[in-house]
């Protein structure tokens, strides 16, 4: 597809959309689907057909609109009505409201609240607006224009320069400067290079990548293709965890559509550049989010990491130079190419540019998906965007970075969200999971939860992690049950130090973080457990005494 054809497709699609006065967007991402949104969509279509309103209003399935706790969500455009907790029985009321021009009060979700107002959508700019299963809608929203711009107006070096200027850092959690990674792979003289998208999102409590893949899959393909052009790769893989069947299906559909349209595969957009993408499934191993383990998995082997250096840019898939980036990182590329690196660098803080997608979950009123500029405070995210703590309970801590991260207590809530600030507090940005906890959460139990996870996910290759996580878990389990003694805290700290400094990969190195972080801010809970009491009141301490 050439630029002219792209623009023509966009025009045709927009014309087709404008023939209908109004659109009802029904969220068909995993969360709302499991709450019954497919039935809601069907009911709405039926209702409109029965009322003879099909030429006036069309129903379409869209991706994530963000406020998952209020799902299934239905939005009416251009009226701007947003409805939550919709059931198929609400179809008559909703269709009637379109005719009357007045929203259905009992279903209405205010769109003027901080949850929506305070977000800045770049990665999610199309989520909830386009049908993720229609390429034409992505094109009409400006999709693939960045790819064509890169292929026809920019050199690979130009692309890398924009990405470098943008200051984009890896969104998988480590925050490595993306432009630097790209230029390292680009410089390699390897004849066969690969681009890999890490969609293994294994952090429990994180669903950002899932939402992006289900809501706007073409965006990720476009980002990967631009990257392949920039570094000189001809083959790409998207490694998706098997627990995301909808994301896998939508990706496969998107790849087929893009190939048929000449936007992926051989001679893209009529240029000499060719790039093929293959989807590869994970199979239930958190460690495969680590890049060397991920590559081992793509190669059909056990997903055990190997020592780095050499890094994938030098020695990656099958020994070839490989670029690995997270889903969200690639999803930022189209907008960076479109607006320029400098525009992007104006958002965020001095060291952390752009936005970050967060999955807000746990004990907070508004759970769901948000995208905010870097530098926003945790307090604003939790209490304004998140709506605060439900049931009149008190905020206790927010967990960032999943099992590799740490807890942040109330006194640090005004910390701006950026890579360095969170690390300084003993946590990390991580992939974007934010779990909010209130005073009913026991921090010792939470530490045990994370260690149980790390112990189960340890690949077993290196001694410190394999045996260390088992011992850490045992110690925490005894602490939770009130069977530990004073030695236990010292041993926890000793093992934590050992794992941090001697483990082979990031899993072992960061497995102690939840322990260290809860010991730092909530040591009194550990002391209480030693003395046979649980300050949160949830653990049955001393039951075996």
């Amino acid at each position, binding site marked *: 597809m050439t630029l002219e054809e792209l623009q023509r497709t966009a025009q045709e699609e927009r014309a087709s959309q404008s023939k209908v006065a109004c659109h009802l967007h029904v969220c068909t991402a995993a969360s709302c689907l499991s709450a019954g949104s497919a039935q809601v969509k069907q009911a709405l279509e039926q209702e409109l057909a029965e009322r003879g309103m099909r030429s006036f209003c069309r129903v379409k399935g869209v991706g994530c609109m963000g406020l998952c706790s209020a799902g299934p969500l239905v939005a009416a455009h251009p009226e701007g009505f947003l409805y939550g907790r919709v059931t198929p029985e609400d179809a008559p009321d909703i269709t009637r409201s379109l005719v009357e021009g007045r929203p259905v009060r009992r279903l209405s979700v205010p769109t003027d609240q901080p949850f929506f107002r305070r977000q800045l959508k770049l990665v999610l700019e199309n989520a909830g607006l386009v049908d993720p299963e229609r390429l034409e809608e992505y094109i009409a929203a400006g999709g693939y224009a960045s790819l064509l711009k890169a292929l026809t107006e920019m050199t690979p070096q130009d692309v890398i320069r924009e990405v470098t200027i943008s200051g984009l850092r890896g969104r998988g959690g480590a925050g490595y400067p993306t432009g630097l990674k790209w230029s390292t792979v680009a410089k390699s003289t390897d004849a066969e290079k690969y681009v890999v998208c890490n969609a293994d999102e294994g952090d429990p409590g994180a669903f950002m990548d899932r939402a992006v893949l289900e809501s706007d899959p073409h965006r990720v393909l476009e980002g990967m293709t631009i990257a392949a052009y920039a570094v000189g790769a001809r083959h790409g893989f998207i490694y998706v965890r098997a627990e995301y069947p909808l994301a896998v299906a939508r990706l496969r559909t998107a790849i087929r559509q893009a190939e048929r349209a000449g936007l992926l595969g051989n001679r893209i957009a009529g240029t000499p550049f060719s790039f093929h993408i293959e989807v590869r499934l994970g199979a239930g191993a958190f460690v495969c989010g680590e890049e060397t383990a991920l590559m081992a998995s793509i190669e059909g082997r056990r997903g055990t990491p190997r020592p780095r250096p050499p890094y994938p840019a030098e020695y990656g898939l099958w020994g070839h130079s490989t670029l690995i980036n997270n889903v969200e990182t690639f999803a930022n590329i189209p907008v960076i190419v479109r607006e320029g690196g400098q525009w992007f660098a104006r958002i965020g803080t001095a060291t952390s540019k752009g936005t970050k997608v967060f999955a807000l979950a746990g004990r907070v009123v508004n759970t769901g998906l948000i995208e905010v500029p870097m530098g926003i405070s945790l307090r604003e995210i939790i209490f304004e965007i998140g709506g605060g703590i439900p049931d009149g309970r008190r905020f206790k801590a927010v967990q960032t970075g999943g099992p590799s991260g740490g807890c942040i207590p109330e006194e640090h809530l005004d910390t701006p969200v950026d890579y360095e600030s969170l690390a300084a507090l003993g946590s990390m940005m991580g992939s974007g999971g934010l779990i909010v906890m209130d005073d009913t959460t026991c921090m010792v139990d939470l530490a045990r939860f994370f260690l149980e996870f790390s112990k189960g996910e340890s690949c077993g290759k290196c001694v410190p992690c394999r045996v260390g996580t088992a011992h850490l878990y045992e110690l925490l389990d005894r602490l939770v049950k009130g069977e530990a003694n004073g030695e236990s805290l010292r041993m926890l700290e000793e093992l934590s130090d050992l794992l941090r400094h*001697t483990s082979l990969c990031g899993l072992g190195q960061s497995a102690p973080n939840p322990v260290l972080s809860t010991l730092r801010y909530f040591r009194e809970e550990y002391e209480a457990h030693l003395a046979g009491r649980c300050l949160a009141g949830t653990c049955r301490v001393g039951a075996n005494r």
Partner: protein
Amino acid sequence: MNAGIKTLRIDGRDVSARADQTILQVARENDIFIPSLCYLEGLSPVGACRLCLVEVKGASRLLPACVTRVEEGMEVTTRSERLEAYRRMILELLFSERNHICSVCVSNGHCELQSLAERLNLTHVHFPYRYPRLPVDASHPRFVADHNRCILCTRCVRVCDEIEGAHTWDVMGRGIEARVITDLNQPWGESESCTSCGKCVHVCPTGALSEKGRSVAEMAKRRQFLPYLTMMRTQAR
């Protein structure tokens, strides 16, 4: 200056090395002691046991000497209080992981785990012993696999894959549940791929793999064959 030769400093001593050598290889050439268990000359290094970690000036992390290539001007420290403490703790973790009872073991006196513990002055293990229930597989006509003594160094996996070529051994499961297995986790004696060459037995650092008929302290390993075979195979390629 010959581009293929590097000079570096290990524990304050200047040493020279080929560009493709690792810190561990150079250290051993110069009789500088760096402990290791998963490393065996002739097999590909994996950097798994973490005993060979050394401090390198300018590096933010400790680096495994067995897989880290030397660089010009590198400054390596192989001994420090911190490294000694980590090494002892790693050994303690190994002793606590499975059932290592030297007094009744076929490799008593000939065991690399035992020797290393002695050398590093390990006097007691302060981590709680786990006492897992692990099997002894004596189904093979010539050899015995005692999983109680295994430290998952994977030397058996590597020698069978890289030198013998049969790839009879591999690892099943993961984490603390990981175990070495033959074929489809069958008794070793029923393995279809095993050639009974015995290489795995002799590269095994402990009494996990031994020859039948050996009693306590009688299993001394002989691995003179390994560098010779490796050299022959490399040349043949």
